[in-house]
């Protein structure tokens, strides 16, 4: 694999896409939606205690994550089989570009578009920082995790597009994969905990929630410095959706752990973070999907997926 080959594929994909879609309209409406959301959320937070930047940022990033999870499959779910349907894949494969270069190039092109969408959210991130309460580390980590999760979803969709003959099927399955990661993990976790029953059920199946992108994002979000109540006790920052979600997931992992901000000092150790498991799992799935894509693109092909004509 060479950088030259990868970048050639990336540039080609970008150019072809840029000239096909109505990008200005799409990106314009994306910014408009984010603007509307941030403005309304900001308005709804008037009168809230504490710095408004924290809930504004948290709400915005959860919203952005939800939206990019919907957008990302569309970026790569037809990359390989769409080319095959249009008859442009085989002519690419007989050049000196390698299968890995084509696979990685197509991933980076799709991921790149996703990152552009994320970059367009930056002004609104800036808005929440101006509102106060945010730390640089937290802003950076959250953006990084969202960026990685976009890549994971793009990679899974790319793999499906290489594996399946029809682009409609792979697009559908890509959305199903996102659904499984988000709703699926939550439902499986809830049902399993219910079946096991008892106080400590969630401690046995917490890992089922780990790959959930929202869980990964929230739990990976660095803690904010504590706030203080009227009596001077340390309390968590109020109105921090990311922090709260992260804390509740850790509590599911260790139900005995009550509250790190309890009045009496606790001797129970802090439950470990959940996100390293989830993020590692997601990244491995994504890497596996890219490997699979490259394998499917490797020629001369011994076996062909059903219903596929080489050219």
């Amino acid at each position: 694999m060479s950088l030259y080959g990868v970048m050639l594929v990336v540039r080609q994909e970008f150019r072809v896409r840029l000239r096909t879609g109505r990008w200005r309209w799409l990106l314009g409406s994306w910014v408009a939606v984010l603007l509307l959301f941030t403005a309304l959320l900001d308005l709804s937070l008037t009168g809230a205690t504490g710095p408004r930047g924290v809930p504004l940022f948290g709400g915005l990033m959860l919203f952005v994550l939800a939206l990019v999870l919907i957008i990302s499959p569309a970026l790569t779910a037809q990359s390989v089989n769409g080319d095959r349907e249009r008859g442009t894949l085989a002519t690419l494969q007989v050049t000196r570009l390698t299968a890995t270069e084509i696979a990685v190039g197509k991933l980076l092109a799709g991921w790149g578009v996703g990152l552009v969408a994320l970059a367009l959210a930056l002004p609104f991130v800036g808005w929440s920082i101006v509102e106060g309460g945010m730390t640089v580390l937290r802003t950076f980590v959250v953006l990084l995790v969202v960026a990685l999760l976009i890549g994971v979803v793009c990679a899974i969709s790319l793999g499906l597009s290489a594996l399946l003959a029809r682009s409609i099927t792979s697009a559908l399955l890509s959305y199903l994969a996102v659904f499984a990661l988000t709703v699926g993990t939550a439902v499986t976790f809830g049902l399993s905990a219910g079946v096991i029953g008892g106080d400590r059920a969630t401690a046995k199946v917490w890992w089922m929630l780990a790959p959930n992108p929202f869980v990964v994002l929230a739990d990976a979000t660095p803690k904010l410095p504590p706030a203080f109540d009227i009596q001077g006790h340390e309390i968590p920052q109020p109105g921090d959706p990311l922090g709260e979600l992260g804390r509740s997931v850790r509590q599911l992992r260790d139900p005995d752990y009550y509250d790190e901000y309890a009045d009496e000092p606790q001797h129970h150790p802090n439950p470990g973070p959940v996100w390293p498991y989830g993020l590692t799992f997601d990244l491995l799935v994504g890497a596996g999907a890219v490997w699979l894509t490259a394998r499917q693109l490797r020629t001369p092909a011994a076996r062909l997926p059903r219903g596929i004509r080489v050219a």
Partner: protein
Amino acid sequence: MRIAVRRYAVSIVRGGWAVTDTEYGVVARGVTRGFGPVQALRGLDLTVPYGQVTALVGPNGAGKTTLLLILATLLRPDFGEVRVAGLDPVHDPSGVRSRMGWMPDVFGVYEQLTVREYLAFFAAAYRLDGAVSNQRISDALLRTHLFEYANRPVHILSRGQKQRLALGRAMLHEPAVLLLDEPASGLDPRSRVELRDLLRALAAAGVAVLVSSHILSELEEIADRVVFVNEGRTVDEQDIHQLAANHMSQWRVRAADPDALRAALEQRGVTAGASSGAGTELPAMTEDAAAELLAGLISDGVRVVAFGPVGSHLETAYLAMTQERR
């Protein structure tokens, strides 16, 4: 120079794998390939010499496209030996790719790009550097008569023009072996003549050209050699002039005075067939026999206006081959 090399080239001996790549751009021996229950190739043999145009002829489903995909490094054969430009496409696909150009029968183009951008992308994908790339692109545009379209988007091109663009793309890296799957389909008569001239020029420059086609009358003008395939096997591999000489084909004769012609034919014991405006049908005979008959008719004083084979030799050979199948 090439001729000198050729003399020393070891020819292919069945069983004994002694091949030098100085003579043959493509060598395939006993190639088989199945797709699930369907056996597309059942032991196909083929040679494509440098400096010649070889035609691959056979009915639909004979395995022509499968064979070309194997030669183009896209498909792995189940069994058999394949060499393209002297290299094994299974073990050294990238080596083969830099020496081989391929144009598929069905293909797409990047509709959003301009003609020049399209070629420039592939030049880059073949790792041609700046100056060489520009030179080759201009050359391809000239040879495929697309120069005036260089800065127009690909999507405005007609089917025949896209076909020529694909041919230009296949030649960008100056391959020693050129594989063309049905290149003439969709081309208008002028483009076909141009294609013929282009392929002849490439062959003259030493390129090994393999063309599959259904348009037999044309192949006869383009090709030096013909390989007949049927049901995944090679049926016959021949020099096209030999084919014409050896093959019994139908003939037709036309004279200024049809009655005198009939009388002369009768006298010579030739059973004449139906007569039409085009002339009188004659029974099948070889070129030699036909030449003799013509000389005879003229010495008899028949004023012959036209005397020639009906259809092409390739066509009759093809029809004879597919007849055997039934």
